């Protein structure tokens, strides 16, 4: 079968030679689509332009902190030359000039941006480190390059003292951590590898090893008293305190809260009881002058009560009080009148016990001096005995806070008795109770005082550490507390410990800003900002009135 064949002439005859002059549907379709696509693109831009919304032109979403300015580029992008006044830059409408850049002026309208260091030789622009339009990120989390540009080889202004490591190219090359150690009034910066100089100068006596021992006595009592605690764990050796029993973070989980006597030390483990004859009484965990006031009030009250009960007939109601008074040697027996107590008082320095008096006897020989000279010894039997005279005539007693309502001041032998009780009890309290944990400061002729503990809130003043984000790691991985017996031990981890996890390749973050802040936050501006809500919400369009200058 022969297929159809055409000659050129036949072909030409079959074709309408003017076909190209007429529009063909395929070409028409292409034209319509081209026009439609172009118009659609233009219309899209037009809709946003009419709405005054610039968001489509951004190279990326702005950071959450600047979200309210996202639609108006001119809030931050201002003419670099001949721009608005410093206090109005940013929110004020920017006119003139084709090129609109983000100037430092626009940033500092809202942010203080304190200088990094007084002796730095150059200051980068804000936008060098704080890179916008990268979406949901914290602008302060700038890259290492912004830091290492200077810190690879730090240059200082002429004459400036070099206090820090001059070359820190990366976290892998980070020098050993340094901490500020107080040496009297001076503060020395010492790196953790210089162990000979590394002494914790906190004025407190603490043996971590002893506290972390399994089977530590008193923990059963503590649990009975306070109930089960997740911070007291059962081990083979018995109950054991975990680190978190005493050490807890504040609400942001960044810094550690100071150890509190009320919460962590007493009264279950280290009660401040002082006299077995007052089994429920404990001195307040306050400064020694207040302890003195408390004790004096207590003994005066006891004396007055005994005087009162001594004149009454024995009964079931006053039996407990009569017993105490007999123990205090303030009455001879149930029917006897009050005795003169001074001669029968127990020796001044005899331990009085209390619930944990035995432990008190084990207290180390703390540098506790004798009670102050002006204390009860100065109160003589010849001192004025009237209530009025007692109030104004004796210096030591004059420090005492007002006695409880209804309490009668002791008279005559009562003063001597109270003075004797105070002398012996205070000696015991300051030496065995306060001095057990605190360093006592003694000064001749003055009452001993506890030295300020001076436990640093932050050891590394140039870095921040978030304990919360590290809570998956057991404390002893970083803090060798289980073997520490001395208060002077510094239990901070070396940089190598951090570098075990924080590695540039396949590890936790190593960015400088993970631990360090650039701006000096102590120089931040006050919270009272310069703009009204209307100005902020309106962006560049509504900022017709300049903000009040702060």
């Amino acid at each position: 079968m022969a297929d159809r064949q055409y000659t050129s002439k036949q072909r030409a005859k079959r074709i309408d030679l003017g076909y190209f002059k007429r529009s063909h549907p395929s070409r028409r379709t292409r034209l319509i689509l081209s026009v439609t696509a172009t118009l659609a693109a233009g219309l899209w831009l037009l809709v946003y332009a009419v709405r005054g919304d610039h968001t489509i032109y951004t190279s990326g979403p702005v950071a959450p902190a600047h979200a309210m300015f996202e639609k108006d580029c001119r809030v931050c992008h201002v003419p670099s030359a001949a721009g608005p006044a410093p206090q109005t830059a940013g929110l004020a409408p920017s006119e003139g000039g084709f090129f609109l850049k983000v100037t430092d002026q626009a940033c500092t309208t809202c942010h203080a941006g304190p200088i990094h260091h007084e002796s730095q030789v150059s200051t980068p622009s804000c936008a060098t480190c704080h890179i916008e339009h990268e979406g949901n990120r914290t602008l302060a989390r700038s890259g290492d390059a912004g830091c290492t540009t200077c810190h690879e080889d730090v240059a200082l202004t002429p004459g400036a003292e070099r206090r820090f490591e001059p070359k820190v190219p990366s976290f892998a090359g980070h020098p050993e951590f340094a901490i500020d150690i107080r040496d009297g009034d001076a503060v020395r910066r010492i790196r953790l590898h210089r162990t000979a100089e590394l002494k914790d100068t906190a004025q407190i006596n603490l043996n971590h090893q002893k506290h972390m021992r399994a089977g530590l006595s008193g923990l059963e009592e503590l649990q009975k008293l306070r109930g089960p605690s997740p911070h007291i764990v059962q081990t083979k050796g018995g109950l054991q305190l975990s680190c978190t029993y005493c050490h807890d973070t504040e609400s942001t989980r960044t810094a550690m809260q100071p150890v509190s006597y009320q919460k962590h030390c007493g009264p279950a483990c280290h009660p401040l009881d002082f006299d077995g004859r007052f089994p429920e009484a404990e001195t307040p965990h306050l400064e020694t002058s207040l302890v003195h006031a408390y004790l004096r009030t207590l003994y005066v009250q006891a004396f007055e009560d005994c005087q009162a009960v001594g004149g009454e007939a024995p009964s079931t109601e006053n039996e407990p009080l009569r017993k105490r008074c007999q123990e205090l040697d303030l009455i001879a027996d149930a029917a006897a009148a009050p005795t003169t107590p001074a001669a029968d008082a127990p020796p001044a320095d005899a331990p009085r016990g209390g619930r944990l008096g035995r432990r008190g006897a084990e207290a180390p020989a703390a540098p506790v001096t004798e009670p102050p000279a002006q204390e009860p010894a100065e109160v003589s039997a010849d001192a004025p005995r009237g209530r009025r005279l007692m109030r104004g005539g004796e210096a030591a007693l004059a420090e005492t806070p007002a006695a409880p309502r209804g309490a009668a001041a002791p008279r005559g032998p009562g003063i001597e008795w109270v003075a004797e009780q105070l002398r012996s009890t205070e000696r015991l309290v300051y030496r065995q109770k306060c001095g057990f944990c605190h360093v006592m400061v003694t000064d001749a002729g003055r009452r001993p005082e506890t030295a300020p503990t001076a436990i640093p809130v932050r050891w590394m003043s140039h870095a921040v550490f978030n304990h919360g984000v590290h809570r998956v790691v057991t404390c002893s991985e970083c803090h060798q507390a289980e073997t520490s017996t001395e208060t002077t031990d510094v239990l901070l981890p070396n940089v190598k410990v951090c570098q075990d996890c924080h590695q540039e390749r396949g590890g936790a973050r190593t960015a400088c800003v993970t631990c360090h802040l650039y701006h000096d936050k102590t120089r931040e501006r006050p919270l009272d900002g310069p703009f009204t809500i209307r100005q902020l919400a309106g962006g560049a369009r509504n900022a017709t009135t300049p903000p009040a200058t702060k």
Partner: protein
Amino acid sequence: MLLDGSHRRWIVVTVATAAIATAIYVMYALTDPRGPHGGSWTGLGFGMTSLALMIYPALLGLRRRVPTWRVGRASTWLRGHLWLGLLGYVMVFYHAGFQWSGTLTFVLMILYTIVVISGIWGVVVQQRVPRMMLEQVPLETVYEQIDAIVGQLRGEADDLVDKATGGLPIPATAGNGASGNGAGHGRPPADQGGDHRTEPALAVAEGAGDRRVAALRETYLTEIRPFLDQRLPGRSPLLNARDRLALFDHLRTVVPPGAHDVVEELRTICDERRQLAQQKRLHHVLHGWLLVHVPLSLALLLLAIVHAIVALRY
């Protein structure tokens, strides 16, 4: 456009330029504290280059609209369109630092990607489809004239069967005949009679009776004529080579020997119709991508220019 040896120089230039751009980008990405981004000087350089390489390919359309312009040969422009367009796509990645989180930049990247992919598809089909056309469509004609020629073929077939069977029960229309080129094929116009009846031209009608003639007429009207319509039927034995062969073999056995020439002529007409349908199909493959490529290129160009202006301002 075939990718032949004439493209070698373009390929070398494109690859070399891309390599240099890559080296610059790597150095820039490693040293820029902020990392690669469109706002840096290097990023802006890449951006302006890519915009230029976007505009140049778009000028090909203008060049084609005004073929008399003495601005180089069209084939050279087409090669440039192909390779510089690809190079521009690479430059856009370096300009953006492989990030396009802004709305407009994201849309631009989507558009550019579709345009490039559709362009690459166009190049690929141009390597294959013309050869297929040559092999499968020996009777290829001007694409825009396919419908007209199909009309001619049907008119030609109508005439054949009309003469052979003594009349077809169909109205004669101008479309059945030659479409204005005076070729003389096709049914007579309407003024010559609609459902006209003539004496069968075949001697077969005398001895074999109307039944055999009616078989030819019936087969023509039910199977062949619909196949010669402008729109191919969804189901037809003529769409399939084996069924087509069987149909005409059967028809040849049914009609008297004197009508075999008519059957053979109908077969060749159907074969030409089939080729034209195939040409149409191949043409759509060969040029269909332009329906995506061209409109989106124009939208891309508009948005890219706006992006450049706004980005430079801010």
